[in-house]
């Protein structure tokens, strides 16, 4: 870190004349324009992050509540009745409430935390800073993107407080369950609010995504060719493309669902007798919704995962003091994953009565994704090989990400194979698989990003002792929770069962469920500790004293320690090289802004 001082702002030699008029303090800002309706990408990023953190606490808390039910089905918790009233009479979580909790847990974490909170945060903060732009292409739309997300949040939260409760059909909201108020309490007003909230969310995702794509394509600084972009930006770029292409499909599916619910159409409904009432609907297909949903739903998994992959690539390279291994292969595999993610959606539907031949095509395409994924893993491991590794909290989370991605990715090979999926479909195996690979792994990528770029965001460091504790407890906890859960799935235990006492086949894991519950409470407590660390460090953290604390090559570390709106004082630096010249020619790192020397070796 002693090299950290060796940043060379004076290297900047080019003059982009029309940029000269931009200065940090060039317009008067009030509290409202600076912190609330801000058009500064950095502030918007922080807004996404903090909203995401609040949502993560809510979503995480829900999981602790239903884990209590799963671990201690016979136990009564009077405090639950105090807080939730008739939803938890006698201190027992009612089934309707249990399903509302899991639905909200899934929706909140998948969309509000790991989509908006993760890519919303880091796309906003990193794109202009790493490509060398003053702000996003359309700062006003960018601001709207956050405020649509905020409105979506308000609507979703409001659904928690209505008499019939929030949506309770699972985060995938399959009709007819989600379409018929008679079939479930959660399918009454709560479901309409869910759809409205998601519609607002899609608008937010589209406004954001279009902005990210435009900025990356059009607003790169001089010399920043596409192949000189850090992998974070590439990952965010593919994420945005996936979002722009797939979210509208979800929206269309949800609008049809709204019609079926309220206008008497029959897109998804046919031949239904519910609660003794014969419905007039004929000719619809419940499976159509699943196609529309998973056409978003599968790319969504990669919308969550790709930004984490990008940040992990960057952080592994910086802290190994070594270039990322196989930049072009990393790029190619990102592209392959993004493309294939659109061609595999029906692997969620192997047991819906899907044509077996079609199923076999989806098996092939699904398992094909394992090839680019394997390339990424091998390249990450080779990046560590013969490095000189600094274990910052960010680096540890990045290593943890790779470990979890391997574990969760390999179980994906089980589920993507339709033959095995017949047995494992909708069991706890699926829960364990996607929590490891998409949930915890992406969270690890997000934590890595927060620890790494916190100094850039707030000009202070997070407390690293708390960071190390956070990492080790979460890492051990994640495996303790989800690894044994695979066995429940192998035993065929269906997911979304809150009480197994009436069954003969699924009662053997009582002790295990208790253990998982206890560990998840501890892990949740440690996340609260992280949140404490986060807010504490914003105000009281150790101050950053050098521009480039990690000795990093990328452009964001050439800005002032606390960059104002516009990011760079004076003109934007020109870029002369790729971002991964670490350990080259005996030098620890060579920033992107430094021109290629005459005697420099080629790679």
């Amino acid at each position, binding site marked *: 870190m002693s090299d950290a001082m060796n940043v060379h702002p004076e290297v900047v030699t080019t003059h982009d004349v029309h940029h000269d008029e931009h200065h940090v303090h060039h317009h008067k800002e009030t509290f409202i324009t600076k912190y609330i309706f801000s058009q500064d990408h950095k502030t918007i990023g922080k807004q996404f992050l903090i909203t995401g953190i609040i949502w993560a606490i809510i979503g995480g808390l829900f999981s602790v509540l239903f884990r209590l039910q799963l671990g201690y089905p016979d136990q009564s918790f009077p405090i639950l009745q105090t807080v939730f009233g008739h939803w938890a009479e006698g201190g027992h979580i009612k089934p309707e409430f249990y399903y509302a909790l899991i639905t909200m847990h899934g929706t909140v974490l998948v969309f509000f935390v790991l989509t908006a909170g993760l890519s919303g945060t880091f796309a906003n903060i990193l794109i202009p800073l790493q490509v060398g732009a003053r702000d996003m292409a359309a700062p006003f739309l960018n601001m709207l993107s956050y405020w649509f997300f905020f409105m979506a949040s308000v609507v979703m939260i409001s659904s928690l407080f209505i008499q019939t409760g929030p949506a309770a059909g699972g985060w995938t909201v399959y009709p007819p369950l989600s379409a018929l108020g008679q079939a479930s309490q959660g399918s009454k007003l709560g479901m309409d609010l869910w759809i409205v909230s998601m519609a607002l969310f899609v608008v937010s995702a589209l406004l954001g995504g279009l902005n990210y794509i435009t900025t990356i394509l059009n607003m790169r600084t001089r010399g920043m060719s596409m192949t000189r972009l850090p992998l974070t930006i590439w990952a965010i770029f593919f994420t945005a493309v996936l979002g722009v292409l797939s979210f509208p499909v979800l929206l269309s599916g949800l609008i049809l669902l709204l019609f079926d619910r309220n206008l008497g159409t029959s897109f998804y409904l046919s031949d239904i007798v*519910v609660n003794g009432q014969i419905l007039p609907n004929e000719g619809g297909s419940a499976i159509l919704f699943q196609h529309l949903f998973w056409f978003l739903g599968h790319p969504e998994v990669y919308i969550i995962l790709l930004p984490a992959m990008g940040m992990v690539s960057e952080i592994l390279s910086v802290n190994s003091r070594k270039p990322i291994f196989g930049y072009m292969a990393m790029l190619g595999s990102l592209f392959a994953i993004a493309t294939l993610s659109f061609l595999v959606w029906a692997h969620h539907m192997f047991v819906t*009565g899907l044509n077996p031949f079609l199923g076999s095509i989806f098996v092939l395409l699904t398992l094909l994704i394992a090839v680019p994924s394997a390339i990424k893993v091998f390249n990450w491991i080779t990046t560590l090989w013969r*490095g000189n590794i600094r274990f910052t909290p960010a680096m540890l989370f990045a290593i943890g990400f790779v470990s979890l991605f391997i574990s969760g990715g390999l179980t994906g090979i089980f589920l993507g194979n339709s*033959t095995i999926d*017949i047995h494992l479909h909708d069991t706890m195996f699926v829960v364990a698989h996607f929590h490891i690979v998409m949930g915890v792994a992406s969270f690890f990528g997000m934590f890595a990003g927060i620890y790494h770029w916190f100094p850039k965001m707030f000009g202070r460091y997070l407390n690293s002792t708390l960071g190390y504790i956070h990492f*080790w407890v979460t890492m051990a906890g994640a495996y303790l929770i989800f690894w044994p859960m695979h066995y429940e799935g192998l035993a065929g235990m269906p997911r979304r069962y809150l009480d197994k006492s009436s069954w003969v*086949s699924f009662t053997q894991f009582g002790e295990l469920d208790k253990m998982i519950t206890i560990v998840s409470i501890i892990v949740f407590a440690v996340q609260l500790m992280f949140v404490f660390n986060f807010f504490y460090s914003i105000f009281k953290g150790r101050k950053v004293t050098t521009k480039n604390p990690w000795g990093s090559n990328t452009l964001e570390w050439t800005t002032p320690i606390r960059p104002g709106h516009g990011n760079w004082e004076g003109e934007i630096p020109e870029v002369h090289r790729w971002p991964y010249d*670490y350990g080259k020619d005996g030098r620890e790192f060579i920033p992107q802004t430094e021109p290629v020397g005459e005697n420099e070796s080629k790679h």
Partner: protein
Amino acid sequence: MQTFFIIAILLLGFLITFQIAKASEYVSILRGEETARKQTNKINGFMLLAFLVLGLTGVYYCNEKLRGKVLGESASVQGVSIDTMLFITIAITGVVFLITQIALFWFAYKYQASDKRKAYYYPHNNKLEVIWTVIPAIALTVLVGFGIFYWFKITSEAPKDAMLVEVTGKQFGWEFRYPGRDGILGKKYFKNIDPANNNPVGQIWDDPANWDDIWFESKPLHLVVNKPVKLVIGSKDVIHDVGLVHFRMKMDAVPGTPTTMWFTPRFTTKQMIEKTGNPRFVFEISCDQLCGKGHTGMRGEIVVETQEEFDRWLASQKPQYYAAFPDKDPTAPQKDSVNAISKTSATTAVTQMKTTN
């Protein structure tokens, strides 16, 4: 339980205060920042190695502890293929898991920061990248090959001699319908559903194939050992799923879109009781697709028995037609002639079917 809660909260409070204390301590050693950093680096490097060792031990321990609790031998012929596929996959992914996790943590430990070493500038190696593109591709080809082979075997058309049963899901239970002697499930229409008048699945009584169909709910489904059975699966209200863990089979029950699934039971319930040593053993039908508040208890049972036992059981069942039209039931007064009469009604049904064709 309360105490547990309190302990958890105390633990959290303790952690936070302790860490704040530690944080201030950290600030005090700030002067020696570089040495402190080197020390934490060493500690974390060691922890990574320890995590690898403990983790792999944990994986082994977990398997020892839990493998007895997962299902035993598959109770269906198709399930045997599924288990084989599962073991092939476990073997291949297990090797990959070990190699990559060990490499990841070992490299992290081995190449931790040291003043003596300089990082090796190694941006790419095309040969290596081709190798680790081709090897996973080959492994996956094997998996896809086996997978699709078994998949087509399992999802192929049911054999001609397969027994036929209709399974209908509803909130929250299962209904079963046997086709009777004619082997044909009579036509039905959902708007005919009228449980009050003994027509719970909406059978069209004009269709003679319906006259001998046997319907029941809340009782076990009976199957014959070593005889293929084809389930025609439907739902009355929302999507359910017929999950048969011991047979390793699963198929959604979708309203408006009938699905099918077939399999061959290998063991009778009695044999399974002996094999598992569990006198309470029973084949269970679980609903595997979230279907509302009663999802968790949407349970059905299956009895697998020999052909003789099955025949005896079937003979004691009455077609639903007679429940709907008691006056048409010729057996009501004289119980002994059940077989003879239903045989004749079946033959008339068959001849009528032929004439309509």
